[in-house]
């Protein structure tokens, strides 16, 4: 049966679900004008009621441990349990102001994680302070800005961003006080060198690239691009949200990138948590290290310490040192993969993507032919005669207990179905996905209305999103007041 209750709707006056020790202190008082005057409507439930409620709520979700989750650009790989266990160790639950002598373990993890990321990426030093990918982009672009300012080259305010880029890229540019300008792409989303050359001038702060790009294509002229941008006085920013395809194989730093961010919640397997917490470490080449946001964790001899007095840095972008709990998990994952396996992540994620691509290209329209990297994009069904859209396909997949691919991104592909299988999936899982995709394609041909009416097996059916936006009901009190 469909569980449709809100926690507020099972609440009952005077019920409790908590326990606290009896207070040992006398009651101190506050002037009454400082007190809130309207009681907050908070739940009153027993512990069992709370647990049962959220357990039933959880049943309405789809997680990686239920089934295949080929959500392009999101790298939904397996999130090992051991990372969770280790990050929960009480020894790591320290107050952020504990002196360095009492937090050497935590500081070592921070330091070592950034060091391993440096090795893997070919950039020299990382900060783990950014909270997510977009936050990393922001910090990275601030560094780009700071670099030019320090050189008194502050008319450089434009950042080149391809049209296929993730939405956070242009948005981060804006938030960092820069102006995003688009460069023409080739048909496969790679940078058009001629167009690039034309754009490069002394107003260009740099270029932001995802490589392989969001179409899954490696920028094969990257060395030339890097030279062009550098020669023009700009810097290269690498959106490494997803580092899977090249992990252990090739490094952004060696390609000429100066700044990058990595999403630990993608490549390094920290769970997405329904939309965070993430962690978006930013790495830079040596000549940019001074700009990294403070506080900075450093090592001297065998001791780790926190420096927060660096003058030339971009400033502070987080209250403390970032999402350390996420870093703990990533560090555990890095150690587990280890030297022996990093490159296999790259290889198998690419193998899996190409296998699906080749297996389905007779039913779905390949946006770009040829070898892809860890993900690729279909432009919907090949047979468009029945007007079955990418959205319809996605919804129909729900009925087969598969999480749909990313849809309608990247924007450059009209009916985009962006597929990223990740390396942790077996051939059997890929094969059953391929089967389901073929069945849906067949259904679209033979029974298009079936597909357009999907999903049927989910707890709720297609939703009316328009009404929700027209008349937003965004809290329980809005429901009460209806």
């Amino acid at each position, binding site marked *: 049966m469909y569980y449709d209750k809100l926690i507020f709707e099972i609440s009952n006056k005077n019920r409790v679900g908590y326990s606290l020790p009896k207070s040992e202190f006398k009651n101190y008082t506050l002037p009454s004008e400082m007190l809130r005057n309207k009681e907050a409507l908070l739940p009153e439930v027993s512990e069992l009621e709370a647990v049962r409620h959220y357990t039933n709520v959880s049943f309405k979700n789809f997680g990686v441990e239920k089934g295949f989750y080929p959500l392009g650009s999101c790298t939904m790989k397996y999130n090992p349990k051991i990372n969770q266990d280790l990050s929960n160790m009480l020894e790591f639950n320290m107050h952020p102001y504990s002196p360095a002598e*009492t937090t050497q373990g935590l500081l070592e993890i921070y330091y070592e994680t950034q060091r391993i990321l440096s090795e893997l990426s070919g950039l020299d030093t990382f900060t783990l302070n950014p909270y997510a990918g977009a936050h990393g982009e922001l910090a990275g672009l601030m560094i780009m800005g700071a670099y030019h300012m320090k050189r008194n080259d502050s008319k450089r305010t434009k950042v080149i961003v391809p049209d296929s880029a993730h939405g956070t890229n242009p948005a981060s540019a804006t938030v960092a006080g820069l102006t995003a300008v688009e460069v023409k792409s080739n048909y496969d989303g790679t940078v058009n060198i001629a167009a690039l050359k034309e754009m490069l001038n002394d107003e260009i702060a740099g270029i932001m690239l995802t490589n392989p790009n969001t179409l899954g294509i490696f920028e094969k002229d990257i060395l030339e691009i890097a030279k062009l941008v550098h020669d023009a006085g700009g810097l290269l920013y690498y959106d490494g949200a997803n580092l899977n395809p090249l992990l252990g194989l090739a490094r952004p730093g060696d390609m000429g990138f100066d700044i990058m961010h990595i999403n630990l919640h993608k490549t390094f397997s920290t769970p997405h948590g329904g939309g965070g917490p993430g962690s978006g470490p930013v790495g830079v080449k040596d000549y940019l290290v001074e700009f990294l946001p403070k506080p900075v964790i450093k090592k001297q001899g065998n001791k780790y310490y926190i420096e927060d007095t660096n003058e030339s840095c971009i400033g502070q972008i987080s209250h403390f040192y970032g999402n350390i709990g996420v870093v703990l998990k990533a560090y555990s994952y890095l150690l*587990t993969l280890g030297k022996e396996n990093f490159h296999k992540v790259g290889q198998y994620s690419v193998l899996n993507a190409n296998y699906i691509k080749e297996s389905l290209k007779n039913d779905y329209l390949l946006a770009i032919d040829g*070898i892809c990297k860890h993900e690729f994009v279909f432009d919907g069904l090949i047979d468009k005669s029945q007007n079955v859209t990418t959205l319809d396909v996605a919804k129909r997949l729900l009925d087969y207990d598969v999480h749909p691919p990313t849809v309608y991104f990247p924007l450059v592909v009209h009916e985009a179905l962006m597929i990223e299988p990740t390396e942790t999936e077996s051939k059997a899982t890929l094969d059953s996905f391929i089967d389901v995709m073929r069945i849906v394609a067949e259904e679209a041909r033979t029974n298009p209305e079936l597909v357009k009416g999907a999903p049927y097996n989910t707890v709720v*059916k297609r939703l009316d999103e328009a009404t929700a936006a027209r008349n*937003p009901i965004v809290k329980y009190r809005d429901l009460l007041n209806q």
Partner: protein
Amino acid sequence: MFKYLPHTTDDIQKMLEVIGVNNIEDLFSEIPTELMGQDLNVPSSHSELELYQRFTELGAKNKKLIPFVGAGSYDHYTPSVIRHIIERQEFLTAYTPYQPEISQGTLQYIFEYQSLICELTNMDVSNASMYDGATATAEAMFMATSNRKKDKILVSKTINPNIIEVIKTYAFYRNITVDFIEEKDGETSIEDFKAKNSKEYAGIIVQSPNFYGIIENYDGYREILDETKGLLIINSDISTYSLLKTPGDYQADIAVGDAQALGIPMGFGGPYIGYMATTNKLIRKLPGRICGVTKDSEGKRAFVLTLQAREQHIRREKANSNICSNQSLLALFVTVYLAIMGKKGLIEAQTNSFNATHYLYEEVLKLDGFKPVYDKPFFKDCLIETTKDVEAINRTLLEHGILGPLSLGKFDVLKQNLLLFSATEKRTKSQIDQLVSLLGAL
């Protein structure tokens, strides 16, 4: 073979055949060879036993301390059920709820979270979370400057210096000018505010309880701001609204801050969760995700992400915020915390913290060499001045497994002898008495 990589050689062979290449290397042939094959100085693969070993060693390099400091990270009690719920794979391993039909779990808790934030702050609408209280405050500044189309903002000096640092960073790169309102007797000076406020400013950002733990009073702020059409942005540790006057009571435009004090472990500073709530008028300026109620095609109540046209994935360079992933699982954490603690428990936990801090304050002030700084009502941080050697104090306390107060010297060399203490409901009387007796013996 490796436990996270399922392919056997046989699998690989079959897949390569379908793809039509001879070996995996062929899948990387477009990559310039000079880029390939670096030898990496990285650790070798750890088995689970080796990993436990390593983490146990690392854990042993930390020293467990009983904290008597808050200053943005509070050692509150965490009900045991929370971890069990948030670690259910259904919640933990899901992505952002882009496919609402199979994400009603995430969407429902976001809706509950938004409802709770609105209840606590007395505001109309909350988003689904921000990174932390500091970045949320910086985003509130952007919201204000964008809405008011101004490039200046007023910020009170009584705000936590780390939050001020983040505001300054965000402001600097986006060419926003931050002007500061002086403090007076430990509070934001309303006189200075009146003096400085003008139509040039998008509004003012204040914090209460402020960095010193002092509960500020914003009566009159609304009126002052209405004259210049400025926005009132109030930052707070949200747990304090269990007892204290809310942004809604002050007719604030934006309520913002950190929700760590709702039972989230100190965790060396993160993950925490920034909250952000505003008025109906400003809903379309609110950054981040918002979940709303709708119906499915059969008329069932259901939840969706709504008003997405505000967000970066649609507006791109025109978006006012770049936030994408936020702190969703912590929104669930806070939601379960509030469900378990409930109306009574939240108040009890905060009242006990309030009382413990006041007991600590009273007892420390009885000692020679300690005196009050401001005579103002405070909540669960309190400021005490000492004539003793601050380093010696903290060294002695450390030796006894105690994390002592924060010396404001960290932010201002002239304030070396001002100590910021805090006690939560987890601190027992005997722990506080031990602290006091150690301080007394110095």
